[in-house]
């Protein structure tokens, strides 16, 4: 079973925007769509390391701010000719709080 950890309020993340969560292995970007869905991806574009948390969020996609690769927020898969995948993490909203997969965060910290 996935164990979730509370990382903050949904209101702390701008709609169509993102905030980052720091781990020992780098940052995880937590996105909020226009319709208040949340998704979590590694905050690193596999192309040149662009911070995806600073990209423009549209529909269920984010566009890398450095060179405009477009990622599917739910899978971390880049679209079209860009054949990159960035790691995605289970995330959800409950009672206005944003919850992130605790086990994955911990594994990253331990590694």
């Amino acid at each position, binding site marked *: 079973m996935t164990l979730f950890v509370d990382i*903050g309020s949904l209101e702390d993340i701008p709609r169509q925007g993102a905030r980052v969560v720091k781990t020992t292995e780098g940052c995880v970007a937590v996105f909020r769509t*226009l319709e208040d869905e949340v998704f979590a991806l590694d905050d690193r574009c596999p192309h040149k390391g662009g911070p995806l948390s600073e990209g423009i969020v549209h529909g269920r996609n984010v566009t890398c701010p450095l060179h405009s690769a477009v990622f599917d927020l739910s899978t971390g898969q880049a679209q079209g000719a860009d054949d990159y995948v960035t790691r995605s993490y289970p995330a959800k909203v409950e009672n206005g709080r944003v919850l992130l997969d605790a086990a994955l965060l911990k594994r990253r910290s331990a590694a």
Partner: protein
Amino acid sequence: MKKKLVIIGAGMASGRAIEHLFEHATADWDVTLFNAEPRGNYNRLMLSPVLSGEKTYEQIVTHDDSFYAAHGIHCRFGEKVVSIDRARKVVVGEKGEVAYDKLLIGTGSNPFIIPLPGKDLKGVIAYRDLEDTQAMIDLGAKPGAKAVVIGGGLLGLEAAAGMAARGVDVTVVHIMGHLMERQLDESAGYLLRKALNDKGIHVLCQANSKEILGDETGHVRALALADGTELPCDLLVMAVGIRPNVALAKEAGLQVARGIVVDDHMVTSDPDVLSLGECVEHAGAIFGLVAPLYDQAKVVAATLNGEHSVFVSREVSTKLKVTGCDLFSAGDFAEGEGREDIVFRDPSRGVYKRLVLKGDRIIGAVMYGDTADGNWFYGLMKDGTDISEMRETLIFGPAFQGGAALDPMAAVAALPPEAEICGCNGVCKGKIEAAIKGGATTLDQVRAQTKASSSCGTCTGLVEQVMAVCLGDDFVMPTHLPMCKCTDHTHEDVRRLIKSMELKSQPAVFQELGWKTKDGCHSCRPALNFYLLADWPLDYQDQPQSRFVNERNHANIQKDGTYSVMPRMWGGMTDANELRAIADAAEKYGAAVKVTGGQRIDLLGIKKEDLPAIWADLNDAGMVSGHAYTKGLRTVKTCVGSDWCRFGTQDSTGLGIKLEKLLWGSWTPHKVKLGVSGCPRNCAEATCKDVGVICVDSGYQIGVAGAAGMDVKETERLCDVASEDEVLEITAAFIQLYRENAKYLDRPYKWVAKVGLDWVKERVVADIDSRRALYDRFLISQSVYQKDPWAERARPEDRPKWAPLADFTKEAAE
């Protein structure tokens, strides 16, 4: 012997329960019905048609005296229940006790009253019962009456529409970004707002109420908003939601959470007490719509009659009862894992439909303008029907006839004849149509006869679309590059339509121009954000989430994810104080320091979370953002001019500073750089800038449309003028013309190449009125946008927004 049933509350749910109770042949009940309102059961949902005059009170009564008499029901209307004594099994009314075997509590809900100062003034009402409705009806009889409704949900809008239909001047004040946000998405909310505006109802969204103001007689006179606006009114209706009315149940010691807690059989924590309606809480949920209440009524009747029945909460649908506003909403329409959208828009008819699918099932539907198929979709959703077979044509509904594809020209076809197509020559759609009817079949013929698209040419695409609509297959549309995958329109078309159709928000553009996506993409959103703020500076609210990272964070992102910070140095001048502050900041934040080509100093390698602190430090030394990251005014490069140079003819430094102080903070289609040289030796390299001024003995030579990037190009001479004031006015007018007309991400030299320098000269130099109007519009925009973004974001309370949301590196170390 008959069993004694006491019912508290004669609402819609309890009325329905009584009906079901007596449907059973075995039913043998002696019923006493209490109601605080001085009347029996009526259909509260139909208060809105009563308000709007479409129905009378008599028509919405569900149970009349003969019904109560036929079933031997003792009616105690207009009498409040004082308490419930569960130990003795009696209900204590104001006029005496009644014993019960079973008790049914249907106390409903109370309107929520926002605790604003002035909430107890006369003329402040909720929208709950016939008395409230009558107060609104009475207001309609008063000539010139004004009303304010707080709350843009279902009830608030019905109240507003009902009063408007009776001639009242109504303003709706809503705290959220769009109307009915619980039932509608942004696009449908936009259409609804538009329809209400057409009915003469004013709608203010994102509006915070602050205080209700009264007159000397203690009657409401106005609502004050947090931004200082005062909305005068004779009646103020609060329709911001309901709270379960649990006071009696709570006092009686029943288990109460948000509502009176009931099990699947509608039984409370006391086995002899049942409850139903808006006062109950079942499995954590409370209820505001009628459909589940009717289900509860069935279960209550069955339980009382000793049968097994279970209440199951189900999806509900909503319709707004406002004539002319056709909307439908059901289920869940948030985005989510594995969910897909099917969107249909028909701008000319104002239709929007959206289905949310999960797997092969419909889980949500929002419709506006054409809701005929709503119940069909709702049925599919409720039954969990597999729709994979009809997926392709699903959105067209059960009467699908072959489904014409969305017509990209629908928006143009729908324009009225008086809509302006060509702004340069003031040519409206009707004139172009007349020319086509008169025999013009080519673009050149239309140009020759109407002058449309014969000046700057940016409306060419629209003229061609008008021709295509009129001529049908006889006209072959040339292909133009659309703005992005979200639309078939070009940038030029979109700009023109934003102006002519007065589109003032992104949802408005998406709907009216038939966008194929719900919220655009990284390519169109920044462009639309600019077009809207440039055309409607006073109406449009800038959307940071539609901006590229640099403009959103007001710093330049570098390849390693750090930022560069560059304060403004007016005209390239600085002093010891500023340099000291910059040196301190560089040391404190570990920045690399670079002198730029724009005569300023760049601090590189700043971490995002340090941005507000370094901005505050630089602000303290009197410096503001250099906007080195924007599609906006960057630098004004100058030489030392007549102050110091033996060749200087004019005060080029002073003029550069004046230009920068006038222009800073303005947003433009692409970046804008200026130069002012004090003599033709041109030490400030002004002749390769977007606007370059060369000072000469007789005055100033203004050149525009230079370039020194991907392309290198010398400026073209716009005009020569004698005074600094003329330089300032003409430069601002030129930049405003560029702001209003250029395609996003076209530098001025690209734009001037498209429209022609003569076209620019005519508007900025020759026609003084046009120049003055452009200059004035620039100043209006500056009144909104000329402010230091650093100071606004460096406030201590905003700083946490720049830091990570959570930090797990520290926990791991422990």
